[in-house]
């Protein structure tokens, strides 16, 4: 247990020591999105009855920030340790594969939640955003950041260079995030795209998270929960297996 807590603490310190880049900067850039959308879109769209567009948008943007930062945390920590070689200190230690995995994703969840909470709290100063069912919101944000942390572990192990990691981020994580209903309800999409969106696990994360705020969602939160949980467990098991196999870590 001490070993696991130490690695968790080290992973936490790793981003906290450079918190301006890893926490503050993403909060600011997410708030910029909010500012722009507020001015351009507020008058035009209303997704749910009685929910102004900006209010609708906030949970989506919070989740987007959480997703990106949870992924970035695990993946960049992993690839940095690999490229600089200091991953050997972890690999030489008696830490189990599960301990390594959980330390990485818990640190990712922590960073995701810090960024998300930062965006939410600052947005609260300007807008009146309800939080009807906070436990649902918390459940989805924790599972979502955990899932992205696990994906980050896999991507960080797989990538040998930083540009491969950037490709993973730009061609997989970003499209899935943007097409998941961060900025809109998928009911406003043509039906083909609606069907497509249902194949996107990120969609359920955001929809379920939004349910926690407004008490309404595109689909049942129980369905979303089941799907996100299934993805989380599957990706975690894959990540632990990869760690155990030594793929790209132990040659």
């Amino acid at each position, binding site marked *: 247990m001490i070993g696991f807590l130490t690695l968790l603490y080290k992973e936490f310190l790793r981003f906290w020591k450079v918190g301006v880049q890893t926490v503050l900067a993403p909060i600011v850039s997410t708030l910029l999105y909010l500012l722009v959308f507020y001015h351009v879109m507020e008058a035009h769209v209303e997704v749910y009855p009685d929910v102004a567009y900006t209010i609708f948008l906030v949970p989506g943007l919070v989740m987007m920030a959480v997703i990106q930062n949870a992924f970035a945390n695990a993946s960049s920590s992993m690839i940095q340790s690999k490229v600089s070689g200091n991953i050997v200190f972890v690999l030489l*230690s008696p830490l189990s594969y599960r301990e390594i995995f959980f330390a990485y994703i818990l640190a990712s969840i922590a960073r995701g939640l810090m960024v998300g909470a930062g965006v939410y709290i600052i947005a609260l100063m300007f807008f009146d955003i309800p939080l009807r069912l906070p436990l649902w919101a918390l459940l989805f944000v924790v599972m979502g950041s955990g899932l992205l942390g696990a994906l980050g572990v896999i991507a960080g192990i797989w990538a040998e260079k930083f540009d491969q990691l950037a490709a993973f981020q730009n061609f997989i994580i970003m499209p899935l995030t943007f097409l998941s209903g961060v900025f809109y309800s998928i009911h406003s999409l043509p039906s083909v795209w609606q069907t497509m969106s249902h194949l996107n696990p990120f969609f359920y994360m955001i929809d379920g998270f939004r349910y926690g705020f407004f008490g309404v969602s595109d689909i049942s939160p129980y369905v979303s929960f089941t799907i996100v949980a299934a993805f989380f467990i599957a990706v975690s098991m894959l990540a632990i297996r990869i760690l155990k196999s030594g793929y790209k870590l132990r*040659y």
Partner: protein
Amino acid sequence: MLPAIDVTRVCKHFGTVCALADIDLKIQAGEFFALLGPNGAGKTTLINIIAGLALADKGSVSVMGHDVISQYTQTRQSLGVVPQELVFDPFFTVRETLVIQSGYYGIKNNNAWIDEIIHRLALDDKADQNMRTLSGGMKRRVLVAQALVHKPPVIILDEPTAGVDVELRQSLWHFIQQLNKEGHTIVLTTHYLQEAEALCNRVAILKQGRMVALDSMQNLIGCVTAGNTIRLKLSSEQLPIALQSLQICYNNGVHDLKIDNYNHIASILTALRDADIQVLEMQLLQPDLEDVFVEIMHENEKERI
């Protein structure tokens, strides 16, 4: 007694390169063991397989009686490894690095021991400096310190003195010798053969993934065919006929003569005096590990041809 390290029929390939071919090696607890060989011989690969950083294609390795794959928790707890590469985590200071490293091994309050190793490795005034700011030699010392935080019974050092100045090398060896006296098993690789000769009691020599020698230091040096040599600078370039058969080589006015034992020296000197040749300089050369090394590397070349 169980060996500290037991390597059984280990093979490792990288593509078509055979890095280790069928290596068998037992190292007993308490030994001071040298793993030698030219660059690319497979020393690091073997160490990494023992440490679990690399995976053998075939064969098995155990440390203190535990298998390095299926019982990795125990084996890694028993091992302290100083990697060949100068790796460090730029986010932390020396002390933070050592506290974190202790934590990985499940040790919470390790400050007394950390202070001691910092002191014994003369890192006191660097303890609170960021790792990034240290020189190469200092980083190497921190790597040694990291390998010792959990007081492992078996310590493996992969070229711990590469790029380290003479003074530091000596203090490092002194420290490692002390650890050996305290009961730690030591395995090291180095290109400084004189140092290995002075420190180690047993040697394995690897060449292109094969073990070409494995013996005690005494036996290895004892069986060098070169034997003892006497090096003479003489007033004459020409040796007396009686001594010509002893000549091993001649260059720059210096004759190397083979001798069977020390009494032999007296008869050589007599022969020279009889021939009216003066001895300007005289030096007795005893075979050392370097001779063993050169001879073994040569032998193998002949075999292959």
